[in-house]
């Protein structure tokens, strides 16, 4: 029902937007829609340029507040911040767009990382050649896990994915040929590309690569959202039974959603491995899955911009407050509870007018 309601509410969306109780996200969306093409292009270019300059943010006195104590600010921008945003965007397709609760997302990150490690150890492929292979491996794992388990609903799916994440970690921990608990060391860094050097002294290059990947993912998600897969995911999320009745092949689209999410996780894993030059099972614990899921829900499930904001805050905050290093996880836990209680839909929730439309329809039914 909600699906139909949403479609019909699209027509009247402008009048809906004038209603009170519109959130920040809607204001932003309305402003965006009121702009012409040149204005939009200019805005996007400036925004990308500003974000691209972020690594230099620590250099000036008036922006030095950005600097992270203990760990290098430029390195923090790559991992955790960039990586978390990238993975949160990937997980958002699964959890936010299609409503499938995945608690084992770290598995795909690990598969990407280990693919990079193994291929770097046994072949002469460079990082850019490994990247698609790592994504394919993660996608394959996604299909393998998704086909049997995506028939399950809700919390069962959650626990099976959680189990999958743990299985991947334990298999890595207990397999001698991939290094067991010590993992794989001395993974090659990417070769010099477009004049950019990639090594431990040049974190900025990694940041720009991750940024490019994030932009690519954003573009991809925007395309998906308005096309058939996006509509199918939306229908599945809102009401699975209705989606089946409307002829949406739900298993196929669920598996696709899973695979695309997995591929993004795998890509993040490859870049991560080539940045740290080292992978080990203890980097891929359940906590990582929880953190990424927290980014998604904290920022605003289903809304890309919210998810990005959530990723930035939750990845950056613990690094920024390193000076209370011992208690920073505690502060993290408290932040999660407080924010979820105050803003259950996240900092920047998905469009409210969709909700208003749905609520109006529900009201008519009563």
């Amino acid at each position, binding site marked *: 029902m909600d699906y139909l309601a949403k479609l019909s509410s699209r027509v009247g969306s402008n009048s809906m937007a004038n209603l009170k109780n519109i959130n920040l996200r809607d204001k932003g969306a309305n402003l965006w829609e009121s702009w012409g093409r040149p204005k939009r292009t200019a805005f996007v270019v400036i925004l990308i340029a500003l974000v691209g300059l972020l690594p230099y943010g620590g250099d000036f006195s008036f922006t030095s507040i950005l600097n992270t104590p203990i760990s290098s600010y430029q390195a923090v921008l790559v991992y955790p911040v960039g990586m978390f945003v990238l993975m949160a965007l990937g997980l958002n397709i699964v*959890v936010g767009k299609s409503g499938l*609760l995945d608690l084992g997302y770290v598995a795909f990150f690990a598969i990407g990382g280990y693919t990079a490690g193994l291929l770097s150890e046994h072949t002469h492929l460079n990082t850019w050649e490994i990247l698609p292979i790592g994504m394919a491996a993660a996608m394959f794992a996604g299909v393998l896990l998704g086909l*049997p*388990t995506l*028939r*399950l*609903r*809700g*919390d*069962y799916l*959650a*626990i*099976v994915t*959680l*189990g*999958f994440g*743990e*299985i991947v970690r*334990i*298999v890595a*921990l*207990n397999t001698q040929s991939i290094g067991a608990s010590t993992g794989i060391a001395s993974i090659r860094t990417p070769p010099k590309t477009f004049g950019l050097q990639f090594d431990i002294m040049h974190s900025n290059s990694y940041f720009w690569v991750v940024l490019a990947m994030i932009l690519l993912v954003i573009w991809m998600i925007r395309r998906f959202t308005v096309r058939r897969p996006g509509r199918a995911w939306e229908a599945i999320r809102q009401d*699975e039974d209705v989606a089946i009745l409307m002829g949406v092949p739900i298993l196929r689209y669920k598996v696709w959603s899973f695979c695309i999410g997995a591929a993004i996780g795998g890509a993040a894993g490859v870049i991560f491995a080539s940045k740290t030059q080292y992978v080990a099972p203890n980097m891929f614990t*359940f906590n990582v899955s*929880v953190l990424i*899921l*927290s980014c998604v*829900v*904290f920022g605003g*499930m289903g809304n890309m911009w919210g998810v990005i904001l959530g990723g930035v805050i939750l990845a950056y905050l613990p690094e920024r407050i390193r000076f209370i290093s*011992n*208690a920073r*996880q*505690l502060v*993290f*836990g*408290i*932040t*999660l*509870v407080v924010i*979820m*209680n105050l803003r*259950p*839909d996240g900092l920047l929730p998905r469009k409210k007018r969709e909700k208003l439309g749905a609520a109006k329809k529900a009201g008519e039914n009563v």
Partner: protein
Amino acid sequence: MNFSVVTSQFWPLLINGLAVGLIYVLISLGYTMVYGVLRLINFANSEIFMVGTFATVIVTRDVFHYTSAHDALHGWKLIASLLLLLIASMLFSGVTAVLVELVAYRRLRSKGTNRLASLISAIGTSIMISEGVRILTKSAPVPTPRLLSKFNLFTIGSVAIRIDTFMVIIAAALIFFLVDRFVTKTLLGKAIRAVSMSEETSKLMGINLNRVISATFLIGGLVTGAAAFLYMQVYENTVFNIGFNLGLAAFTAAVLGGIGNIRGAFYGGLTLGLFEQFASAVIGGQWKAVTVFTVLVLVLLFRPNGLFGEAIQQSRV
């Protein structure tokens, strides 16, 4: 792969499996009861267990002033100490569980918001508790002084049964029996079952939802606390993240038995405990978690409501 252990070590594995399984049963009650009324995974249950284990240590060490060098107790004094410890551990866990409900769930529930928000809020609470304890204990494992000198009580066939294993099996079975009686026979138990069938209808029947949910958390916490006490009598060590693996296993047990189903948790816990013991004897202890999850996935594929589950699969989400 060493299949011969199954026959050569059959009885010890069986007894250990029973003891481990019954501890799983008690912890999984915490998950399954809360799931029954709220339709939510209580992510903080593993921390409720952890609090129980620390309560056991603190009361033994700092209230009773027992030390490891202390001579083990005998007679009525031993029984009284154990009972008091059991009660203390249950109370600590029970109170923690009620607080978790207040902090993590109540406000979100009254707003009627999405389930994931509650999940994240519960995860946040869980991080809060375990990190708090981690900071207090400086991440070090904490041993508990031994109250019960571990002598062999009697032998069945070729296997000697130790007093602590025996106590775990008897006490856990008894506690499970009491919980089951409570839920099936008393008025509050009836209310809990009513809420888990239909929140809306039970509200219309005049059931105070908040009170029933608090009571469910309290009972789940008390039982989890009892499990923590029993666990500590056998393993005698705890650490801030002890709940994670045990909680995962207990949750698996709850799903195996059909989550939301109290008797299912009993069979699920026992099945899992026994399976885990035999499987890790055959293919090695480090693969324990993998075998457990593989079984879970297979069960969910072929019997999605759990081995002994109710048909709740369709009524959710």
